[in-house]
């Protein structure tokens, strides 16, 4: 039971994480490419593509000996890919700015370089979590529904909290570091839980 709750928590957090990063990415790109509608278009495109690839990979990965521990490793991996953004953002943005004149393709390329990998990893979590939750096919829809609920509810919360409050109190890098820290803590806790005998197979 605790394991189940934890898997839902991870899915919800992952949804929160993705939307918080997506909103911040608009802020990160604005100094170089502005914040016109096409900059947001580029960002959303990259996040959607990365999530779609992540779903594919996560589902595929769940075929091979799925464990809570591995789910936790995905969470931690995504966190590391995100913390890189703090250090890589400025050089990557300047590099693209010097090479791509059109801010549409500049923002698309920058968003891809900076956010594709962390978002792909975040996308792997949901399908992988479904596999850990479902042990009879009769309940698969039920669990998938619950999981979508948690993940998308988390996304809504991440969007609201970030845009209404977090940006008012913290710097972008502080928020990124905080998000990464929570992912790490959740991941470590899941690894700890995953070591118990009755952990999901």
């Amino acid at each position, binding site marked *: 039971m605790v394991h189940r709750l934890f898997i839902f928590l991870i899915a919800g957090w992952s949804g929160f994480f993705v939307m918080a990063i997506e909103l911040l990415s608009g*802020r990160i790109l*604005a*100094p*170089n*490419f*502005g*914040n*016109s*509608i096409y900059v947001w278009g580029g960002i959303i495109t990259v996040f959607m593509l990365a999530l779609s690839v992540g779903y594919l990979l996560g589902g595929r990965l769940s075929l091979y000996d799925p464990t809570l521990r591995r789910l936790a490793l995905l969470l931690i991996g995504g966190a590391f890919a995100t913390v890189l953004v703090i250090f890589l953002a400025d050089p990557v943005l300047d590099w693209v*700015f*010097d090479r791509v004149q059109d*801010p549409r393709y500049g923002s698309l390329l920058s968003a891809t370089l900076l956010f594709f990998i962390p978002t792909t990893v975040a996308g792997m979590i949901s399908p992988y979590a479904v596999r850990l939750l479902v042990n009879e096919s009769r309940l698969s829809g039920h669990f998938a529904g619950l999981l979508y609920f948690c993940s998308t509810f988390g996304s809504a919360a991440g969007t609201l909290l970030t845009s*209404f409050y977090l*940006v*008012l109190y*913290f*710097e*972008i*890098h502080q928020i990124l570091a905080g998000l990464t820290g929570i992912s790490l803590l959740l991941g470590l806790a899941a690894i700890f839980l995953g070591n118990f005998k009755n952990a999901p197979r």
Partner: protein
Amino acid sequence: MRQGNRLKTLLALFASFVTTPSVAMTLIHTEKSLYRNIVVYEEDEQRCMSFTRHNQTARQTCRSLSDPNQFVFSYTKMMMGALYLNPNPGKILIVGLGGGVLPMALAELVPDAGIDIVEIDPAVVKVARQFFGFNPNPKIRVFEEDGRVFVKRAGKADQRYDLIMLDAFDHEYIPEHLLTREFLLEVKALLAADGILAANTFSSSRLYHHESTTYQSVFGVFYNLRLKLKNRVILAKMDGLPSLDAIQRNAGLLEEKLKPLGFGGDWLVPLFSTERDWNPDARILTDQYSPSNLLNSAF
């Protein structure tokens, strides 16, 4: 029931918008753009451009129909105060076009100046040309792009301006990436050694304090022109602020030229102040921390 009431309110709002809210307002033109709805209307012998947001209108530009040269808004007059710091700028950059009142007036006053304008919204450029007599030519060039992107590219290309006017804000919406220390540093790098900055900012909220410390952190002491707590224009000079005596002298030289715009030194010079009327501890706005619109809201 609630639904019905809401519908009624919406209909009433809509009606008040399409018909004439005040006695003699005539709708001339509406234009939808990616960013906003632009409305051109005439009222009290004035033609105005306004952006509509949440059923409120924010007037961007007005031109007097009887005397098109005369400035209608105080802030445009205050922006012209930049000429008191340097009466003869050779190259001018204006961020934010509106109806084009500022560049057209500057082209008259400083005929030799080359004027570059950055405006993000092509629809604003179109409306300014069609309804406000804005007329680009080889000396008045318009670039339809984001101001931040333009400034960054111009900086990399090592360009210099003698006067930069920031006019991209209104009291309802601030492009947050145009009100950060980093952006102002990029603007500063574009200014000639004796270049002038003129910024029209609207804030009367707690953003006022943040905006002030941010400008001060980049430009040092500046002339702060305030009127009725609403309009605010910041004037700074790269090689140090001229004394009020020098301002007064330049005002005298420009008196005849500025008269057709509807004001003179006796109105404008007393607004020049270096007095600090903000909280010096207000957090500086940066690319990392720029919640300008939240700080500008009433909450």
